[in-house]
């Protein structure tokens, strides 16, 4: 391992922050380097990313007509 390289346990500890884009550049690069060489951690990262995307997709949906009417009427009064 090079000086700045990490093992799987260290990578997994920071994987969620990596996916949430919360790491500073130097820490992000260390994780990226690990993922380039570790298929298992890369699969884990892909899985966590996909699950996050499934949660995000919950926010896209139709607006119930009752709410639409209420908001339209509310804004007419502005």
């Amino acid at each position, binding site marked *: 391992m090079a000086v700045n390289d990490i093992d799987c346990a260290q990578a997994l500890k920071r994987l*969620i922050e990596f996916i949430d884009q919360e790491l500073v550049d130097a820490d992000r690069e260390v994780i990226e380097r690990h993922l380039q060489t570790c298929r298992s951690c890369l699969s884990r990262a892909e899985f966590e990313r*996909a699950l996050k995307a499934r949660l995000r997709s*919950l926010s896209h949906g139709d607006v119930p007509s009752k709410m639409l009417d209420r908001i339209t009427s509310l*804004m007419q009064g*502005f």
Partner: protein
Amino acid sequence: MSITKEAFETQVMTILGRLHGVAVRLTRNDADAEDLVADTIARAWRAREALMAPNAFPAWIFRILNNTFISDRRRAAVRGQTEPIEDAELDDSQAFSIFERLHRPFLLWFANPEQEFLDKLMRDDVDRALAALPEHYRVVVIMADMEDLKYAEIAETLKIPIGTVRSRLARARAALQETLWTVAQERGIEVSHSPKH
């Protein structure tokens, strides 16, 4: 110059689906979600002078929605109507992970049980698992994953240290995966090469 009424209405209608989607998951109740969205829009209109640029509208109105929800919950807490906040102790080795349940490192390259699991999950399964979380866990997951907020923004909204956001989010996601696993078992989702539990 503040936003015109016409531009405000256009911006609201563009984002109304997302506001509703987040409000329903925060409140877990259609009527409360409708009140929250209406209250948010009314507050946003009153505070429109504070909107710095049209492209800041989505983040700005979501901040108002979050703050409105949190204020409502604080008032409810004073009346003793909220769930107690208990951040369970959890070390990393105990955190539930669907990936660890399913992943088989020595499978052939084309077998991917964790992807198969995700493919079989329905939107309603994810929704049920999210709704089953205790409120303080549900709120951080919604803010981080549905609204894509940074940890610092979540900390500011909830008035908690950023380290608490980080640890609460880790526990919340582990709890979510455990519930999602149970929901999937109840629905009979099976994945090739996965152990039976």
